């Protein structure tokens, strides 16, 4: 393993990336009008969260039910900058205190709070979009993982944090905009973000960022870190006994997931034009998990398709049959867990990939089939899907039945 170069992008992943890039950058912009394209852009911001969850949950085995927190923090940071820009003294002169955001004026606040001040600067905002959520994630994860809180407990506590942040945002109406959130965002450095042209450009920016995030995640996944994450998910104690500090890897992957979510949140604010607590709380956070689960919790590309598919279904179903949508979503949760735990990507790997021609699998797979069985090469991720784990322990791996998520090289 030491003397062998890690292939970060094996051929079939490369093909998958190319197809996704083509679909996002060429097919969709040509096929859809600006309104629909903007909608797709909105769905894609959730794909950022789903990618983070693939790393964190699928590979690391850490289920976070609080990804909305990071999505929201990133989005709010962006929204604060945009709001400050749109509430210059000129356009807010009818307020009793001109120059502060309108909701502050409505809540009898006469001075801009100190922690809003830095958001006048775009470089600081762009830094804060990632830094604030990551710092928050870092604090949470250090406190939890260093004390070996994991599994179900971690899920519940992240959920509680999502609840706390929502209540806080709604309660501190004067500083955060309350239930309505931060609305009426107009320009970015004088550039109107509400025009059709701006929406198209933002869509492409979102796509590029998404592809960059995908590439980063892919590198993490194929790297040694990714291998350790899988090992940790399946047999945490063995990894610990091998001399690794398990908690540091968990903290790393959780912070990465938070960073991806935050970028998604900021892009959401830019494309949709507002940010509100309804994207922070328990319900949106757990819905983000289902985007990842539907796409396939072990597949980065699957997560993108999952986000697109679920959100598209949500928009079209909840427009015409609002009742059906909740039934559908509920059934999706149950179905994805019971029937196909590896999501769309799992189905694809099982039923479509075997029929793909040899060039698709690339030279490594071809070589492997020549040799017969290649599991001896050591760096093949063949997760241990043993089912002899004692029940009742909260440190169990997310054992997936069927065990067909082999990352054969």
């Amino acid at each position, binding site marked *: 393993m030491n003397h062998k170069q890690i292939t970060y992008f094996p051929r079939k992943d490369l093909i998958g990336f190319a197809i996704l890039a083509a679909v996002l950058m060429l097919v969709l912009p040509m096929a859809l009008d600006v309104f629909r394209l903007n909608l797709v852009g909105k769905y894609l911001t959730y794909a950022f969260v789903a990618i983070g969850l693939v790393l964190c949950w699928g590979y690391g085995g850490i289920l976070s039910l609080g990804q909305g927190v990071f999505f929201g923090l990133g989005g709010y940071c962006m929204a604060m900058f945009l709001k400050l820009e749109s509430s210059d003294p000129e356009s807010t002169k009818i307020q009793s205190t001109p120059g502060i955001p309108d909701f502050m004026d409505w809540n009898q606040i006469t001075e801009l709070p100190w922690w809003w001040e830095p958001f006048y600067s775009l470089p600081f905002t762009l830094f804060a979009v990632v830094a604030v959520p990551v710092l928050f994630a870092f604090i949470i994860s250090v406190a939890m993982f260093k004390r070996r809180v994991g599994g179900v407990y971690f899920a519940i506590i992240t959920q*509680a944090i999502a609840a706390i942040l929502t209540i806080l945002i709604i309660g501190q109406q004067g500083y955060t905009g309350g239930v309505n959130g931060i609305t009426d965002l107009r320009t970015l450095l004088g550039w109107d973000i509400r025009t059709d042209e701006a929406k198209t450009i933002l869509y492409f920016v979102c796509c590029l960022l998404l592809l960059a995030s995908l590439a980063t995640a892919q590198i993490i996944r194929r790297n040694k870190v990714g291998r350790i994450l899988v090992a940790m998910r399946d047999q945490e104690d063995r990894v610990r006994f091998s001399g690794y500090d398990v908690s540091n890897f968990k903290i790393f992957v959780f912070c990465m997931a938070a960073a991806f979510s935050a970028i998604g949140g900021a892009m959401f604010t830019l494309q949709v034009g507002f940010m509100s607590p309804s994207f922070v709380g328990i319900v949106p956070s757990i819905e983000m998990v289902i985007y990842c689960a539907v796409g396939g919790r072990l597949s980065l590309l699957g997560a993108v398709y999952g986000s697109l598919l679920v959100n598209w279904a949500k928009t079209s179903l909840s427009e015409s049959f609002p009742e059906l949508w*909740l039934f559908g979503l509920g059934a999706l949760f149950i179905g994805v867990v019971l029937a196909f735990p590896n999501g769309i990507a799992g189905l694809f790997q099982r039923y479509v990939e075997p029929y793909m021609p040899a060039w698709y699998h690339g030279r490594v797979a071809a070589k492997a089939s020549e040799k017969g069985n290649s599991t001896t090469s050591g760096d093949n991720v063949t997760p241990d899907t043993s089912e002899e784990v004692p029940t009742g322990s*909260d440190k169990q791996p997310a054992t997936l039945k069927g065990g067909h998520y082999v990352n054969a090289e």
Partner: protein
Amino acid sequence: MFAEYTASELTAIFAMQGFAGLILFSVLVLMALGLAIIFGQMGVINMAHGEFMILGAYVTYLTSNLFSEYMPSLFDGYFFVAMAMAFLVTFLLGMLVEWGLIRHLYKRPLDTLLATWGLSLILQQIYRSVFGAREVGVTLPDWMMGSYPLTDMVEVPINGIFVMVLTLVISIGIYFLMFRSRWGKQVRAVVQNRPMAGAVGINTEKVDRLTFGIGCGIAGIAGSAFTMIGSTGPTSGQLYIVDTFLVVVFGGAQSLLGTIASAFTISQAQSTMEFFLSGSMAKVLTLLFVVGILMLRPQGLFALKIRR
């Protein structure tokens, strides 16, 4: 912040808020006991627990309508019938859910969480379709109305006292069920060592199903009690689920006493702070406090010493 009140007023405020806290405590205990049995004993995360509670509330609502329609003379006692019905319905649904869903997921606790969340969405939508999106309330029988004056400044509502007594009775009942009955011993045996319990002839699958059913049944009773102090809507259960999980985790998942103690701490802290701060800040501070303690002491207040 205490300056503008006199000493006797402060005492009265604390007494009244303390009592309001006790009512909240009772509902939390009832909800959390069911969850403590399911989560603490079986290790199953039941995100649909709130919806089981609401089912109990709706059954109570239906029973009260039934009584006022057909048997107005017996209306005073409808609540006891309603409670039994609520238990029965949620118990049966719980067994069904265990059989259809939970049973397949014992080895994947995180997936159970997602699946039961899906179940809760489906149940919510069913409630919305059947009972409407608006909240419904039950008519209390006459003897539960009004309040009982302790001093001239302190008054306690009678329905609150009733809910508290009910909580006490049920808690004692669960104690006997868990620690004195044959079923309770079997449950604890299965929790402590599943293969061994199976080897000595305990039908572990049956015990699991019963445990889940009884946990859900207690949630049903909680819902029934809930109608005495508040109205019920399709999403009321979701509002309580995080609080309830925190109560159970905070108390130490496997300890029933811990559950009661932590429900007491959380509800008292919240209702006392609610008077002086805004409701939302009280809630934020309470939850932060609980999360903070859990980070320092992940095993909860009362941790059982179990060999893992």
